Each structure stands twice: as C-alpha cells, then as structure tokens.
C-alpha cells in the first residue's frame, strides 16, 4: 500500500500508530491519596461549626477533588485543548443556569410584596401543622379572605363585571 495518508493537510508517516501519553502508576496513586486526604478533610470540617462558610469550604474542597479527578483520571491534562474547552463550556452553562435562577428567586420576596401576591398551601387537613410553621406573613387570614373573595368573584358569573364589590384592605393594620 503506497497511498499517502493526510491529516490536516500534512502527510503523515504511520496512520496506525497511536502516540498517547501514558501516565506513570505513581501519579495515579498520588492522586488517589490526595483524594482520600481531601475527603477526610471535608468529613472533619463538617463537624466544625463554621456557619455559612461551611458551604463554601465544602464546595471548594469538592472543586479541588473534581479538578484532580478530571485532570488526571480523565486525562484532561494530556488531551487536546478542545476537550478542555468542551468540559469548561459545560461548567459555564451550569453556572449560567444557577446564576440566573438564583438571582431571580432572591428578588422574588420583594417583588411579591410589591405586587401583593400571596402563596397558599392547598394540601388538605393533614398539613395543618405544616401550614402553621410555614406561614410567610403574619396577617395571612386577611390574605386568605381576599383570595377567597377573588376566587368567588371569578368563578361565580363569567358575564358579571370583573371586579368584586367588597374587598378587605390587605394593608389594614
């Protein structure tokens, strides 16, 4: 067979040979030891009372472990750059997903107050206790009455005028 093989426009000698980087066994053992150490660290730190920082510490350690697994066990360090790009773009999209959702949800409380929307749990008699511990606002009996009035007005007569006549004032002290 005297046909030349080309790759990216340049002729190459042997199409069959595969030149891949073989990591030494000691590297894998070292990475495994580092992973065990980091796991122990997460476990130990979880017993210390760090407050809100405990989430960030745990995430930091998890990211370190993830980097070790990705770079060495998954060979990302020795692969073409494009593979790293694909992996990092996944992480970026996950970050976009998290960021936008959490930004939206964090501003929900103020938005709900301005719009005067209220949430109600319609679970039935079993969840009375849950309702008591999960009331978002103190004056909710009035909110319930207001919502009932709105619902009655909507369901009673489709041809009736849109606004219900008597609405209790939700802002009454």
């Amino acid at each position, binding site marked *: *067979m005297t046909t030349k*093989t*080309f*790759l990216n426009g340049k002729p*190459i000698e042997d*199409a*069959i*040979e*595969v*030149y*891949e980087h*073989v*990591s030494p*066994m000691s590297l*894998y*053992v070292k*990475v*495994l030891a580092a992973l*065990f150490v980091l*796991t122990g660290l*997460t*476990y130990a730190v*979880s017993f210390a*009372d*760090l*407050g809100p920082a*405990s*989430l960030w510490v*745990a*995430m930091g350690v*998890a990211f370190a*472990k*993830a980097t070790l*697994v*990705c770079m060495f*066990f*998954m*060979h990302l360090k020795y*692969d*073409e750059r*494009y*593979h790293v790009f*694909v*992996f990092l*773009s*996944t*992480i970026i*999209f*996950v970050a976009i*997903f*998290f960021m936008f*959702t*959490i930004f939206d*949800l*964090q501003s929900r409380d103020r938005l709900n107050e301005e719009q005067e929307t209220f949430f109600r749990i319609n679970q039935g008699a*079993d*969840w009375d206790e*849950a309702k008591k*511990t*999960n009331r978002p606002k103190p004056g909710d009996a009035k909110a319930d009455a207001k919502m009932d009035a709105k619902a009655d007005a909507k369901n009673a007569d489709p041809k009736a005028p849109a606004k219900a006549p008597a609405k209790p004032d939700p802002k009454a002290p």
Partner: protein
Amino acid sequence: MSSAHGQSPKPPHAFFQHHYNTVEQQAGAAKLGMRAFLATEILMFSGLFLAYFIIRMFYPEMVLGSHELLSKTMGGINTVVLLTSSFTMAMAVRSAQVGNTKGIVINLYLTIACACIFMVVKYFEYTGKFENGIFPGKYFDYARASEYARAHGHELVGLPHIFFGIYFCMTGLHGVHVLVGIGVLIWILVRAKKGHFGPQYFTPVENVGLYWHIVDLVWIFLFPLLYLVK
C-alpha cells in the same frame, strides 16, 4: 462495525474506519463524542443540584433538621469506595495503554466489585430510611419520621418530605447511573477477556472510564452537599 483497512497485521486496530485518516484521529473523535454526552449528564444532574440549592436557600432550618437523619458514615464509605473504583478504572485504561491484558481484566473486576459494594451500602442506607417512615415525596410518613428524629435528638421542622424527595431523587438517579455503569463495565470486561484491546485500540475502555469518572464526580459533589454541610 469492523472494516479492516488494507492488510491489518494485528487485531488491535481492526476497528479502524475508512473515513478517518489516522487511528489517533478516530480515537480522539470517539472521546470527544463521549465528552459531549458527559456534558449532557452533568447538565441533567445540575438541574437536581439547583433544586437542592433552592430548597436550601428558602428553608434552611428544614434542610438542617432533615439532613441530620442521613447517615454520614455510610455516605463516607460510599465516597471512599467510589474513589477507589475510579482509581481502578484509571488503572484499567493505563493497562490497556501499555498492553497488559491481564491488568485490564483484573482492574475491571475490581471496578465492578467496588460498584457493587456501593450499591449494597446504598441498599442498607435506603432500607434504613424506609423502616423509619422516610419515603420520598407524598409517601413520607410524617409521624413515624418525627418519632425517629426525636429518638436521635433532632427535630423535623417544616415540610421534610421535600428535602427527602430531593435526596431520594438525586441519590436514586445516581444509583441508576451506577447500575448502568456496572452493565457497561461487564460488557467491556467480556470484550477485554476476548483480547480486543491493546495499545493501538482501547477506545471503549477509555470512554467507559470517562463515564465512570463522571459518575464518581457527581457523587463527590453530592456527598458534602446532602450529608455534610450544615
């Protein structure tokens, strides 16, 4: 799937397809395809992780009270087992790279063994929950679970069935991934025993290794978030 290109002196590159220029290019393309699939897996789990973060953001006391009922020891054992299985998987890929067929087989056996240990520990963990009335979502037995919590010195506040719904969903989906991984590993083991893999062709071992490392990666994030963080 095998189209022998010209005269192939040894079986290892018998799967070289005609539309690739070199074997290395073919292996690289296969690996890239696998990484694209793994990107979808990561995004799938990220949806569940976001649900966890949202619940944690809005109901921190509920999450705090409920997550005390999870067994940290079992979670820790599972983490160590999965890390070891990741190591043996990387060893299997390395054995294929240097042409050590016996090494591939042994390491694949060890990986499958570690995965089975993971599933057994998970089985005990789940039955421990079910015995005490902790079920996902609407099957959550509030009375029995509160008793169990009080017996351990914790108090369940709010609606813990939501937290446990998320817990069972995330660990359950991860468990399904481990089971599928066991099946795929058995397939690769059978092929390795037949002698399909060598330094010139070990793409299936490498790709299954990538999948297995992602499964381990998801657990690395799952364990601190669900079990450890206050």
